[in-house]
């Protein structure tokens, strides 16, 4: 199990294209991957490989999240997704 916390920095949050990119990248890894919002106690970890679950989280700019992975490539998976969030998905 490996995890990292950050917050969404791109203006449009994890919607539309950024959400698709995020899920597409998650699917490249074998590990079980989740995203959990940290500002809502009732929120459950969502499957990072499911576009529907990611959208349903309603992650907008400024939302603190934790990316977690469990499996053979867990460290690389979390680091790659973390970098993608940090890169603001190419938005300014």
């Amino acid at each position, binding site marked *: 199990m490996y995890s990292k916390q950050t917050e969404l920095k791109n203006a449009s949050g994890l919607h539309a294209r950024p959400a698709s990119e995020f899920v597409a990248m998650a699917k490249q890894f074998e590990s079980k991957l989740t995203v959990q919002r940290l500002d809502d106690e009732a929120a459950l970890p969502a499957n990072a490989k499911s576009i529907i*679950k990611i*959208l349903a989280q*309603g992650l907008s700019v400024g939302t603190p999240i934790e990316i977690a992975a469990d499996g053979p490539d867990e460290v690389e998976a979390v680091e790659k997704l973390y970098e993608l969030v940090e890169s603001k998905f190419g938005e300014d």
Partner: protein
Amino acid sequence: MRILKGNPVSRGIALGKVYIYKAFKADVHESYFEAGKEDEFYKKYQDAVKTAEKELDSIITSMTGESPEKAKIFTAHVEILMDEEVEEGVKEMIYESRTMPDYAVDEIYTHFANLLEKAKDPLIAARAADLRDVRNRVLRILKGEKESNLSSLRENVIIVAHDLLPSDTATMDRNRVMGIITEVGGATSHTAIIARSYKIPALLGVADATAIMSNGDNVIMDALTGKVLLDPERETIKEYQEKLVEYIKEERETSQYLDKIPLVASGERFSVGLNVGNTDPDESYKYVDFVGLLRTEFVYMGSEHLPTEQEQFEAYRRVLANAMGNPVTLRTLDIGGDKTLRYMVMPKEDNPFLGNRALRFCLVHIDMFKTQLRAALRASAFGPLQIMFPMVGTMDDIRAAKAVVEQVKQDLRTEGIAFDEKIHVGIMIEIPSIGMIADMAAKEVDFASVGTNDLTQYLHAVDRMNPAIADYYQSMSPSMFRMLGRIFAEFNKAGKSISVCGELAGDHLGALVMFGLGLRKFSMNAANIGRVKRTLSLFTLEEAVNIAKNVQNLSSEAEVIAYVKAEVEKRS
């Protein structure tokens, strides 16, 4: 002739033949199969998914060249189709409880669609339509039926449907669709957004439209006022043909002005702002210099509970993002009287418009007011935001409201929460009593914006909700322009920003007179931007000043309108 009513979500007029579009409607019942056939039924589902993927791929290929934007809708459909959670949900229902594939698909997709629909962000909630769309595709394939869509229409038609799904509108032959009428949907629905972007007139929420109308019926759809005229008489058709020509001509002339810098003929610059009441991105933001009115009621009225600080903060920040760096004027809650909240008990009043509404209401519900101010102040750290109070009648009102802002600022400072320390605070001028002391008010606030609808109502003592006295509601009266001239002059003299965000700013005739009276900031609904920019561009400053002077000495609203209209027509 029969008339049906609907919600005009995309403006325009269309005359033509009805085409009833009945999309595949799945008839799914709860049903199960006997043990031992799990693999067989799961394979059926997998085959349906493969066929669906093929269909989607071929749509994507055919669209990628000419309309990559539309192709994206179908790329998103492939993502949904291949979603891991959907896949596992269906598989589990087939293997664990021997559910028939169609019922499993319906259950799983509906469950997720409902989940997305609950999202606070309207853009995410709108994605539920995509899920239902993919569900229908899979169910149709499971039933062995062929794809049907609106891509090959033989003649120009007005589409009448219960509802249109993203795949219907994306594959629709736009050149043949004159108008869209559906039984369900509102201004922010998928169909509405698409219709506006294609500039196809659309009337939604027309009850029983598919039952009342039949293929080939001749109808007129008036998506300016929200009517469908069935079986129109010859004179009506002729009247609407003329209206259509007029409408097209005007649209063409004004749309060219949308993205122009707003200038009058002698070169003076004025500013055009947008009035908004939701968090949807809209291309109109590109054509304006500011958001002169952010109505915040949507946050309260669209909710089942009192919106939290966080919910409001996120909504305000989204509007700031939409505004792309342009200043946004947030009007604090304008509720009470006739506008009520279902989760709050509000006493009934005899004269709600003269009652405990807007700022008056907020000052007695101070916790609610503070929550909104905290959300607004926090959002101000993320973009140029200013706060405006509605229903201000006295200097005491201004001071009381400002004191609450100061308290909230102090709380935020203590908690170390960021906000814009130099945030501007201003008022709506809509009660004549504050207009009469505009000079004093100008010293106490950073800016003001005139709400001409309420100002007309209060200046003329006309309840604007009462149709029996509609003729008494005269926003272009000489009294209005004398009052407005006074307010603009006092604010200009004090060097404080003054704008108008009422309907009169979006009325090209009203805007012209107000420019002559010294106003430079006009905030309006998106539909009026081109027209106001165009009309003002026809006049020099001197001409506008003269017109403004003259209208104040005319004796009735009718004379004012006739005079200003004639001046505009002379130059058109």
